[in-house]
């Protein structure tokens, strides 16, 4: 009798430890996703803060591309609004537009030697390029944390109680290919 009771307690103990471990795993996955998102958000904001300066410098040299510059400004504003909603899906699409228009502006600048040798323009393009590299690396990192979170939420035995405790699947952060509209 005591033996069966003891075995029962042992099994309960093991199940309890496993549940605690599974819960902690879900908590860690969720916090990692939040931290990874904050880290991308910071760099996206820094990149987007450089864009008005880029537009200003380009405007001084490039008379005939005002529509393109306005589209870049609109894309940036759309991205800023999407970031306020904190939805990776809509932010991904908005940021894809920002990247596409930024690349177009930089491509157009190639045709203006005076602009290309402007030291402010050179510094800005270097900074934007570094930030784009950081965004790319942090996006990969964020998507890895999302994958780990989604696996944890869907795997047995975590899936038995993930929903009950508010742990959910998260969407990855994708950049869609956007073709900038010709001005």
């Amino acid at each position, binding site marked *: 009798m*005591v033996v069966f009771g003891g075995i029962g307690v042992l099994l309960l103990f093991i199940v309890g430890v496993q549940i605690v471990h599974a819960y*902690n795993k879900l908590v860690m996955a969720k916090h990692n996703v939040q*931290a990874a998102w904050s880290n991308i958000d910071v760099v996206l904001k820094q990149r987007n803060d450089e864009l008005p300066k880029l537009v200003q410098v380009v405007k001084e040299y490039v008379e005939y591309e005002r529509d393109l510059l306005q589209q870049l400004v609109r894309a940036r504003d759309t991205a800023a609004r999407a970031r306020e909603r904190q939805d990776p899906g809509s932010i991904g699409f908005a940021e894809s537009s920002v990247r596409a228009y930024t690349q177009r502006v930089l491509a157009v600048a190639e045709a203006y030697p005076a602009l290309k040798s402007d030291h402010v323009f050179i510094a800005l393009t270097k900074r934007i390029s570094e930030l784009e590299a950081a965004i790319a690396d942090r996006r990969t990192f964020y998507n890895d944390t999302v994958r780990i979170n989604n696996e*944890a939420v869907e795997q047995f035995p975590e899936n038995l109680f993930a929903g009950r405790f508010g742990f959910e699947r998260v969407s990855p952060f994708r950049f869609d290919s956007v073709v900038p509209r010709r001005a």
Partner: protein
Amino acid sequence: MEAKLFFIACALAIGGFVAWRRGMKMHRLMHGTPTSKIATAAKGFVEITGRARPFLPTPLRDPITDEECLWFYVCTEQRKRWGKRKTWEKIKEAQSSRAFVLEDDTARCMIEPKGAEIEKKRPDTVIYEHSDLRHLVWRIRVGNALYALGHLERLSTSIALPSSRPAETVLVTTTNGDPEQQALSLLRSWKQNQAVLIERFDADGDGRIDPEEWESARQAARAQVRGKATAATPSAPRETTSSATAVNAQITHALKVPQGGDRRLFVSLQSAATLESGALWQKRLGLIAFVLGALYLIVTIGMKIDR
């Protein structure tokens, strides 16, 4: 016999439980932390992989075999007899405290062994002095693939990675070109990173720079500035930057012991996949050992109570 089995079961239950919990924590940490690139990782707890590089130009050598390495742990064991059984017992150990560098394809990060858990699986070298005394050496060498978990921070001043020509490692200049000012500027840049200062000038190993050691640092800074001055040509333009720049690469980050929680600064020569698999097996075998030990204890004690 029964008492012996009882103690074995206790040891199995306790040891198994500890191994099970440790395996669970390590597996959760490793599996749940994706690999970051040093250059673009945010400050915080990260997992990084790369190659080991030296932090200082002077090579480190282990005290047993005098082989060059970046880190060593040496352990001397003596064989002791317990009745008919013989076991190896540790009688002496030593570990290097010099920092080393982990380099991935984006940047370099310094790691200080103090406070770090550097995994020691199979020793690099085992030397038998005689049948009852042996020395075991574990090393990290230049170019070894490393895996590390820890708290990543950007250094306030980047440090030059040592080149093969030590005179070129750091160049610091001030706007007025005065050698004494240049030496002061160089000292200030060294002071930004206490770890570097202690590594280079803490002769008595007490973890502090006393006045005599500080004087050595001053002399070294003056010598370094003099070395650059004799190499410079009269027509060479004066450099105006006051930050340390290296001929070769820069060490821009440091991996430190995380504060609080069950996270740790962990370094291993094994790959992430091998370590994760190892942690998973430790978890499983620990659970089996715990269950077996606990079952034996429950059955033994339960039967005694039932009688």
